[in-house]
């Protein structure tokens, strides 16, 4: 039988009590969801790295200032910070100069995935970049709901609360996001079997 998972609220309490490993667990648990969401929202890896770091620095500061009162609703709270920062950055586009490798690619895309062959990495990188570019073509409201539901794994109720929108509006945006993405996939001849 699997041991019950320690909740986010308990991890935060343990961290405040001086347990650094608890914070590491929290970061490890949520980093893929939060980072992927930010990356898809801003469609820029450097900016996503900056925003992700900023989100967790704010998390650390808020928790240590005794301002965290969301118990086990850590993800919606962190995603609210991530979403607001992403919107701010999209609007101002304070972009760092891109550091490229010898082939003009983004060097960050080649780091940390050494278990895959270069060919596998290239195919995956191209495919993900293409998919992100399709999502980026959606109207902002549709893109936001899709990212928050699909990548951040928030419920539609949580998304409605986070975006100050009506629940049905959020679901409607998801419906149109699905229709638009399918149209784009068909137009771009990407196989949706």
């Amino acid at each position, binding site marked *: 039988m699997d041991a019950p998972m320690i909740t986010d609220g308990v991890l935060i309490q343990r961290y405040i009590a001086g347990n650094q490993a608890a914070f590491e667990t929290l970061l490890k648990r949520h980093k893929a969801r939060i980072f992927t969401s930010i990356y898809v929202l801003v469609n820029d890896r450097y900016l996503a790295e900056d925003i*992700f770091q900023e989100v967790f*620095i704010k998390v650390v500061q808020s928790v240590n200032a005794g301002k965290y009162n969301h118990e086990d609703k850590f993800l919606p709270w962190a995603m609210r910070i991530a979403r607001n920062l992403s919107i701010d950055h999209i609007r101002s586009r304070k972009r760092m100069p891109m550091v490229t490798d010898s082939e003009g690619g983004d060097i960050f895309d080649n780091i*940390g995935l050494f278990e895959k062959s270069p060919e596998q990495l290239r195919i995956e990188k191209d*495919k993900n970049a293409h998919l992100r570019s399709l999502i980026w073509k959606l109207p902002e409201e549709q893109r936001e709901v899709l990212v928050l539901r699909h990548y951040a794994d928030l419920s539609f109720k949580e998304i409605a609360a986070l975006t100050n929108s009506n629940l049905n509006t959020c679901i409607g945006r998801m419906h149109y996001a*699905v229709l638009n*993405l399918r149209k784009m996939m068909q137009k771009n001849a990407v196989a949706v079997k």
Partner: protein
Amino acid sequence: MNTAITHSELILYYYNECSAECKAFIDNNLASNPSWSAYLEQMAELFHEFDFAELPHPTTSSIILEESLSYLPTVSHD
């Protein structure tokens, strides 16, 4: 329950967020409503295609962990 199922209800069903009553109704009538199953299959196919995850660079995580550590009381070995 009203027999008219909307796209919104199908989306909630897909994400396991619809009411128990709605879920039971869709489960029981899915086989006889090909348009519902077609819509759900389209969603599943699309999201399978879009199912990717990215990770931050290890340096970014290290900076965050250093910051989180800096707030913790220093352990005295006296």
